Every structure is written in structure tokens, then in C-alpha cells.
């Protein structure tokens, strides 16, 4: 195997190259990347990984479909009886499906040392974890929002309610993913952390469930659903502001 490096064999030239490179690193560097670029790269990586491990991608969606399909079998096939409970069923199923996927949010990266590398990258861990949470929402929240109207219509929701259902589930799952990232960070070092993760995050997710179900219910009833949707959006913005900071602090504690 050759021992010749890319920089060349002249020791003086290598010293100059290294010191210039080190100086660049110290100063932020022309080849160093911004936190935003690093976050975009992580988002792309997580999406690519998810599409190569499709079983993990399908699991929460299959769970959501199964739960919403079992309800008519268990309660009644009559749409007039199912319609009043459609919003609650869709939201309870969406919340549980989102929880199911949360355990995997940081677990694999913690086990193989990737999170350690992120923490040591010199880039803001908060941004990097926000990117991972964004990927999690794109892979679970967004598909759930697209599936929710189908489940809603199977439970008697009118086609006019579709935009309202999509909007409420899409915005609500953003809040669920962000709140869940804090729980996922806190339970990182615990084996079989699913139950504890649920216990930690469910109380924080109750407001999302209440406002989300209310917005969906109003949309199904043909009424204006703006107010609960705005409250959901406020929760999502609050989560966006605080959750990545809290998640990165939790991850740092667990890496120690």
C-alpha cells in the first residue's frame, strides 16, 4: 500500500499546507460549512437513509391505517355514528403513530457514534438536531397528514373537510415531532425507552391533541376551523423555538 499522501512528500510544503488549513479552521475557514448547510446535509442524509430502510418508513403509516380501519369494525359501520368520533379517532391514531416513530429519532445515531460526531463537529448541535427533527416530520408527519383525509372520509367526513384535516394534522404533527425530540433526547441512554418516552411526552402533547381534534371536528362539521388551527400553529412555533435547544441539551447530557 502506498504511503504517499495527497499533499505530497515535501515536509516543508506539508507544514505550510497544514498550518494554512488549521488557520482556516480557526477563522471559520473558506471550506468550512455554515450551520445551515450542515443541517441541510443532515436532512438529505436522513431522507436517503429512510428510503433505504423502508420498513421503518412504513411502520407508523401502517399503524395509523390499521387503527382507523379497526374503529368501524369495532363500533359500527354506519357513517352517521362514526362521523361524530372521526376527528378524535384520526387524532388519537396520528398521535400514537407519531410516538411509535419517535423512539428511532436519535437512537441509531446515538448507538453508532454519529451523535458524538455531531456534538464534536464544531457546528451548533441545536441546528443539527432540528434538521433531524425536520426529517422525522417529513417522513412521518407529512405522510400522516396526507393519509388522514382518507381515514377521515372512511369514517364519514365529507370531501369538503379534506383541506381542514390536512392542515390540522400537518401543523399538529410539526408540534408533535418537536415535543417528541425532547423526550427522545432525554431517553437516549435508556434501553427499551418506548414506555418512558410516552410517559414523558404524552402530557406535553395533550394540548396538540385537543386543538388538533377540535380543528378537524370543525372542518368535518363545515364550520370555520381557523382559531384552533392558529393555536396549533402557535404550539408548533413555540416548539420550534424551544424544542431543538432542549433536545440538544438532553443529548449532550446523555453523551457524557
Amino acid at each position, binding site marked *: 500500500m502506498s504511503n504517499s499522501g495527497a499533499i505530497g512528500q515535501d515536509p516543508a510544503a506539508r507544514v505550510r499546507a497544514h498550518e494554512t488549513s488549521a488557520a482556516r*479552521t480557526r477563522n471559520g475557514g473558506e471550506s468550512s460549512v455554515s450551520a445551515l448547510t450542515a443541517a441541510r446535509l443532515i436532512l438529505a442524509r436522513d431522507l436517503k437513509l429512510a428510503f433505504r430502510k423502508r420498513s421503518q418508513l412504513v411502520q407508523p403509516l401502517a399503524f395509523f391505517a390499521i387503527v382507523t380501519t379497526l374503529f368501524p369494525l369495532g363500533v359500527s359501520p354506519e357513517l352517521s355514528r362514526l362521523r361524530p368520533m372521526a376527528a378524535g379517532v384520526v387524532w388519537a391514531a396520528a398521535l400514537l403513530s407519531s410516538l411509535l416513530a419517535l423512539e428511532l429519532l436519535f437512537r441509531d445515531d446515538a448507538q453508532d457514534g454519529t451523535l458524538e460526531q455531531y456534538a464534536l463537529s*464544531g457546528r451548533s448541535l441545536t441546528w443539527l438536531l432540528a434538521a433531524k427533527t425536520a426529517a422525522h416530520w417529513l417522513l412521518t408527519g407529512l405522510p400522516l397528514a396526507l393519509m388522514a383525509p382518507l381515514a377521515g372520509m372512511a369514517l364519514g367526513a365529507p370531501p369538503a373537510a379534506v383541506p381542514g384535516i390536512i392542515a390540522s394534522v400537518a401543523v399538529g404533527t410539526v408540534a408533535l415531532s418537536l415535543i417528541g425530540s425532547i423526550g427522545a433526547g432525554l431517553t437516549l441512554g435508556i434501553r427499551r425507552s418506548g414506555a418512558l418516552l410516552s410517559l414523558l411526552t404524552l402530557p406535553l402533547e395533550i394540548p396538540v391533541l385537543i386543538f388538533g381534534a377540535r380543528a378537524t371536528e370543525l372542518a368535518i362539521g363545515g364550520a370555520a376551523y381557523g382559531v384552533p388551527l392558529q393555536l396549533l400553529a402557535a404550539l408548533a412555533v413555540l416548539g420550534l423555538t424551544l424544542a431543538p435547544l432542549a433536545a440538544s441539551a438532553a443529548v449532550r447530557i446523555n453523551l457524557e
Partner: protein
Amino acid sequence: MSDFCLKGENVHLWRGDHHVLRGVRFQVGGGECLQLTGANGAGKTTLLRTACGLAYPEGGEITWCGENIRKDLHAFHAQLAYLGHEPPLKAELTARENLLYWVGVRRRVEQQELDQALERVGGDTWSDRPVRTLSAGQKRRAALAALTLMRVPLWLLDEPTTNLDAEGQKLVGALIDEHLQDGGIAVAAVHHELAVSVANGLQRMELTVE
């Protein structure tokens, strides 16, 4: 040669009741390598993790170029590369993709650089294969390629020769040699002597179990 210096001053760290690091002192300058040895559980990995800021010492301090590393941890981290027991590679991605995402978080990596780094570690024949199909030694070589691509002055290596054949162990020595000649610093926890040839720059420290 360079003004880099990593120094540990009276470092103490406990894990529960176990006093793992007991007043550890060291100083490594540019162009020098510190080789840490000791039995299992002696605290080699703990010392490396403390030196890179992942673990908090309960006593003493670690300084980089004269400043406590905690003063600006982000800036310190931007100047170090830490290689743990297991390389952080994703089984579903190819070695090349893994390197692109791993190093890409720190700096922009050109395709040509990536090719050169992979060729340097003998990865030109397997770099486009998913990591799940690679041997443990090939994964370690891919991690070594990432190390060279990071272009940072401080290398903290935890058993860098694990899973490598004789040729691979020589490669680790050669890479460290080049890094030291470039003015860099290497701190490596090892069970076997490193194959470095920089005669004056190699320091040895043995940690003992309490």
C-alpha cells in the same frame, strides 16, 4: 513548527464511586504524539473523551493553546477529530456517502479529495459498496479516510488499529507520521505500540487501574 498545544492539568474524574482519572497530567505540542496505554478499565477512553470535551472533569482542566477548552467549546471542536471504538458509519449507505455526510458537516469536500483519501486507505475497490457488506477492517479504513479529510490539527484516536491487518496498522502509523510532520498533534489510546517513526515526537503514558 506550530503553536498548537493540548495540556491536561491535574485532571480528576469519577464514574460513580470509581475514581477513574486521578490527577492526570500531560502536555502534547505540535508535531508530537501521546500514546496512552493501560489495562482495560484504566481510563484511556475516559481520558480521550475528557480531552475532547465529551466528559466533564470534576477536577483540573484541559487547555488547548493555553485556553480552557470549555471557554469556547465550538471553536475547540472545530479543530479536533475524534475516532471512537466503532466508526460512525451507516450500514445502508456506501463508504463514500458516509464520508461525504460525516466530513461534510464540518467542511466542503470535493469529489477529488474524497477519491484521494479513499485511495490512500486502499478503499478504491470498495468505496461504492454499502457499508453492511464491508469487513470490520474496511470500515476502520473508511474512518481513517474521514480522519484525513477533516484537516484538523488535533487527532484523538481510541484504539485506531483495531480490526486492521499488519498493512493497515502500518498505514495508521504512516498517517499519524504525516500528521505530526504537518505540525499536528495525535493522542492515541492503544493496546499495541503504534508504528510511528517520528522518533522525538512520541510520548508514552501508562494509566493504571485503581
